[in-house]
């Protein structure tokens, strides 16, 4: 240790480094803490579905360390390895609800995207006059549906659907769901279409396409990422919808959230079965969220940044 160091960091630089380090620690600390807050409930659901009663009571957390995973929860749904080959009424019930949810979410999102993108395109390109209604009024007419709380429509629809014999049918649900996500789709798509230069369509029109031809063959492909974003956001909202489904469906068209909710009402809760069911209900969206995260963020961001 005879040789002394010739080049020193000045004291202020060292202080800067220490400051930088502590800042990093705080930032990553916050990030990891929030990640735990976000992911722990999901982890809890997944692990609980493999527990049996004593594990739940003892509050065991880590599989294979605290407790041995069992298929109890999934068995009660008829989805565990040893029951999957057998007849199971519970599984049939579950699959029926799952199918109902899938159909209503997909159809209503598709319908909303079709109607909504047409409206958004029209509003972004042409000037309309319906009586006193000009373009801003028409936009407002559509977007103001967003503030309409579902509860206002719920009871009239209950009566109307009863009279129309649409109660407890998927079509009834699909129509209502389309309505609830339509303003969001219009909002996202109007932004998308406004960012596409009009010259593109003008060129197409000069080349002999009609307005609709230009829309379908030129504009829709360009706006496809936006369409996907709108579709996925609608999918998330409609898949999770509970309020209308709880009011308007009873046996045939009952969706997955209603099935999950109806389980909690009983006296002693089968925690493991509930966890399995909840997990099955949230898993499709978790997969979508991880795979298509880019689109979801794009969809939500499009309205925010002009």
């Amino acid at each position, binding site marked *: 240790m005879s040789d002394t160091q010739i080049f020193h960091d000045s004291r202020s630089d060292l202080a800067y480094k220490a400051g930088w380090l502590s800042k990093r620690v705080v930032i*990553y600390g916050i*990030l990891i803490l*929030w*990640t735990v*807050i*976000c*992911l722990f*409930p*999901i982890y*809890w659901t997944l692990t*609980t579905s493999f527990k049996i009663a004593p594990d739940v*009571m003892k*509050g065991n957390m880590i599989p294979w360390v605290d407790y041995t995973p069992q298929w109890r929860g999934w068995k009660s749904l008829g989805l565990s390895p040893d029951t999957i080959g057998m007849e199971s009424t519970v599984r049939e019930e579950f699959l029926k609800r799952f199918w109902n949810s899938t159909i209503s979410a997909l159809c209503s999102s598709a319908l909303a995207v079709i*109607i909504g993108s047409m*409206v958004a395109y029209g*509003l972004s390109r*042409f*000037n309309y006059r*319906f009586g006193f209604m000009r373009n801003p009024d*028409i936009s407002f007419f*559509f977007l103001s549906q*967003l*503030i*309409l709380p*579902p509860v*206002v*429509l719920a*009871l*009239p629809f*209950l*009566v*109307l659907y*009863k009279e129309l014999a649409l109660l407890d049918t998927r079509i009834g649900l699909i129509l209502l769901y389309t*309505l609830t996500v339509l303003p969001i789709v219009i909002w996202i798509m109007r932004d998308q279409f406004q960012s596409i230069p009009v010259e593109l369509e003008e060129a197409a029109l000069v080349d002999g396409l*009609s*307005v*609709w031809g230009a829309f379908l063959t030129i504009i829709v492909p360009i706006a496809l990422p936006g369409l996907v974003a709108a579709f996925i956001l609608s999918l*998330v909202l409609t898949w*999770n919808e*509970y*309020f209308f489904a709880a*009011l308007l469906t009873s046996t045939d068209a009952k969706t997955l*959230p209603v099935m*999950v*909710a109806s389980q*909690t009402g009983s006296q002693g809760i089968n925690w493991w079965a*509930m966890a399995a069911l*909840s997990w099955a209900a*949230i898993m499709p969206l*978790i997969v*979508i*969220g*991880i795979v298509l995260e880019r689109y*979801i*963020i794009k969809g*939500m*961001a499009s*309205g*925010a*940044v002009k």
Partner: protein
Amino acid sequence: MSTDGDLLHVVTLDNITPQRMRFGNLLKWGGLAFMAACFLVLTLSELGAFPIAFETWRLGLFGYLVWATCLCAAQVVLRGEQGKRTLFILPGVLFVVAMVVFPLLFSLGIAFSDWNLASPDGRKFNGLDNVRQMWGDPFYWNALKNMVWYTLAIIVEYAIAFGLALILASEIRARKFFRVAFLLPLMLSPVAVSWMIGKSMLEVRFGPLARLARTLGWDSPSFFGSPEIARLTIMVMDAWTFIPFMMIMILAGLQAIPKEVQEAAKVDGAGPWRNFWEVTFPLMLPVSITAILIRIIFKLKLADIIINVTAGGPGGATDSVTSFIFREYRDRSNVGYGTLLAIIYLILIVIAITIFMKLVDRWMNPRYLK
């Protein structure tokens, strides 16, 4: 978008012959007449003056569909190229009119009647009785008051979301991982959330959060015991689901701010604190307002978690208006009263949101700039 004339201007030669005009008009008025006939037949059969008694009102629905189709077709026949443009928004308008305007008018009729779906008597007009009942209903006022509390909680959510967005926008590793992780709560169904967190994790005996609370020194944790704590718990659970939403919007806004602005402020000697308050935050105001407004709108629909976790308890302390009306219908199947409450709620919302937007408008565009 308030310029005169179309943004996409098309000049076409539409040669509309008188014959075509006649056909178009026939289509337009024929469809209308068909719908009117359908409604007339339905009304008559309700009154018992028509030979065939219809079980449902589906005939009216078909009438409307036929009229809507005819109207759309007539647009093209009558007005050629102009009609094709109308075709972009006409289906949407017809859909919304059928699904919102008509039911809203219908609900006005229901709101002033005593209509218990379970009883065979059917609908009885009862004037302002429902209004009087509402005036004296402490639970409804309580639910409205709760909504104010729930809405105020958005300020805290906004602060947290802004903080997280700032961190996500700064230079960090594994940003994509954190973004996905932070986004996930938004994807989960509120019903599953209310089970996972509300029922399971907050379970007093063995839930992990109760355990954590005991370790931290809260001897007998009860998350739904007292009204204040129960309300707070609901707020936290709702915040958990929706903070990602605000965070993403704010993050998008942050990324749209040009780096030069912040660098210029830095060069001018602004520390990070002043840089945030005097540059970033003001630039983020429009995005923030949009995010908060949409969040308020979603907050006003809050019901799923409450219905499933507390069912409004203890003693209506956690009730939102939606969950209150839901139970009002579930317990007493009183459609008339519930509808009136919902309509009053809608009116209050419209007033509140209008005031909010006017205030924001005044604040964002001061008079002297105009």
